[in-house]
């Protein structure tokens, strides 16, 4: 991104740099493009990177879109994603704000207790037993609560709150506002960027989450999209998602790839925002000096 210079070796350098970047672009995009092409595959054609547009068939999409199971899974995903963001963000803000107040007695001890859980994890089975003993198995609460607070996000938010000018909070307190009012009326309005960033962090993680639903839920009607996609891709319980007629309407690989495309689509729609806030977020929280 700096000024061009003209010597032949520098020109060669620029050429190789640009060639490398184009290479990265090709390696990133070709697999995704191929998925799209296979999803358009009609019967009797073999898949190709350059399937002619007049051969494109949308039959696989038509078959999937009219499956009630897909819509139920989409609804489940929506509930888990939005519900998860609401719970996670509330808990994270309510824990981060008190811990950002240096004068709070016992603050160091509490931060230490939380940090320890980041460094040492008791493991899968002991956690599973907790969820089981709470009677949360096969309910959404298991998925929503188990991963509700990320220590990393909590610490990033705490650092952000600490960086806000204290004079504003001080002024509100002198006017008689209590801690909740200060948080709600002074701190949160100033924290919109960090709330969006961390909300997106939680949202993406929830939307992509497939392991905890598999671990905690047994009722198939509760499963979110990634779990359904996994079943379609591995050919498990396919009959549940696509009716017998679908297999006659579109090739199996077209159905699989159409499912991949459909489930990626919502992520692609919010990706412009995600990219804007995430790249900032990763730098806010990357290292502590």
């Amino acid at each position, binding site marked *: 991104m700096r000024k061009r210079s003209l010597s032949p070796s520098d020109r060669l350098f620029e050429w190789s740099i640009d060639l490398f*970047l184009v290479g990265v672009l090709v390696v990133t995009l070709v697999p995704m493009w191929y998925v799209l092409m296979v999803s358009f595959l009609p019967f009797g054609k073999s898949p190709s990177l350059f399937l002619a547009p007049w051969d494109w068939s949308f039959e696989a999409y038509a078959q999937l879109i009219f499956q009630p199971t897909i819509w139920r899974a989409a609804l489940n995903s929506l509930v888990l994603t939005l519900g998860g963001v609401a719970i996670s963000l509330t808990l994270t803000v309510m824990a981060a704000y008190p811990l950002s107040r240096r004068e709070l007695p016992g603050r160091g001890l509490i931060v230490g207790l939380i940090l320890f859980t980041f460094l040492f994890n*008791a*493991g*899968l089975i002991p956690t599973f037993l907790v969820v089981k003993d709470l009677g949360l198995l096969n309910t959404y609460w298991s998925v929503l609560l188990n991963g509700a607070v990320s220590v990393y996000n909590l610490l990033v938010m705490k650092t952000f709150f600490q960086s806000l000018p204290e004079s504003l909070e001080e002024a509100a307190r002198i006017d008689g506002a209590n801690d909740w009012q200060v948080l709600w009326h002074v701190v949160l309005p100033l924290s919109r960027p960090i709330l969006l960033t961390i909300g997106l962090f939680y949202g993406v993680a929830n939307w992509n989450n497939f392991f905890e639903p598999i671990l905690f839920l047994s009722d198939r009607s509760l499963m979110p999209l990634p779990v359904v996609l*996994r079943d379609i891709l591995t050919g498990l319980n396919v009959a549940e998602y696509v009716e017998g007629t679908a297999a006659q309407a579109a090739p199996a690989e077209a159905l699989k790839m159409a499912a991949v495309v459909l489930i990626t689509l919502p992520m692609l729609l919010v990706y412009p925002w995600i990219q804007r806030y*995430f790249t900032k977020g990763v730098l806010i929280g990357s290292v502590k000096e």
Partner: protein
Amino acid sequence: MNPAIAKSLAGRDGLATLLRRIWRYRLLYLMLLPGLLYFLIFRYWPLWNAQIAFKDFQPMLGVWGSPWVGLQHFQDFFSSYYFGQLLANTLIISVAKIALGIPPAILLAIALHETSRRFLSRIVQTMSYLPHFLSWVIVYGILLAMLSPSEGLINHGLRALGLEPIPFLTSTATFQPVVVLSEVWKETGWSAILFLAALLSINPALYEAAAIDGASRWQQVRHISLPGLMDVLVLVVLLKIGSILDAGFHQIFVLYSLPVYSVGDIIDTWVYRQGIQNFQFSLATAVGLFKGLIGLVLIVVANRLARRFTGSSLY
């Protein structure tokens, strides 16, 4: 006031002051309570449950009521055939991911920083971050499209060249490379961000001075950009070593299958199968605890070293 009471009050003075201070911040503690409960229930209660690593856990008797067996499960695991295999798979996959993941990320960061084509730079950034946000299930779908023996793009190519198709995801020879390279494909763009940030923080005057002194672009990269990346590189490598036992549970959980257990099974996937599918709760807990303890030591040491060498640290 009665002197005796006054004296006893003075004795309790420290405690009373403390309680008064705590009372003054009661609203903040109240605010903290839900988060604290979360950590107690979902992070510290499991710690208590982890005692079943030293017990013969029977669901009817519960965690506390099950009989102690000492280090039995640890001994069983260490002397079992699985121990060496799981540790080897975990370390091989982890180390390969670090060794093959960091160089492309550095190259990409340097290329993004050096190119004079802003549009190319922007579009490469946008597209190369994208896979980071895709679930491993979606990446599994993409991998099937590329690698499936019957319909995969690469096997179409092999067949066109007159070669035998390769079952990449179910062959013990190719499974580990698939795991490592798919991680590189998914994460290179994202890992480049940290390196790019380090490059952008280098004082531009250094490059200008070098250019005036006749340094070629390559020499500028060699003598200004690369040294400028060293601190971040050391930090990234150390922190990755700190979590070296995490070889990518979710990824392998989605990608592996019975034919490739011998090369694809890592500590985490084995714990899942033993515990959740075979109901060997105590054994699985013992192995998970073993991994957690090693992980704790590694990350604390890595963090110390990072702080010593770069002045930065994770926590």
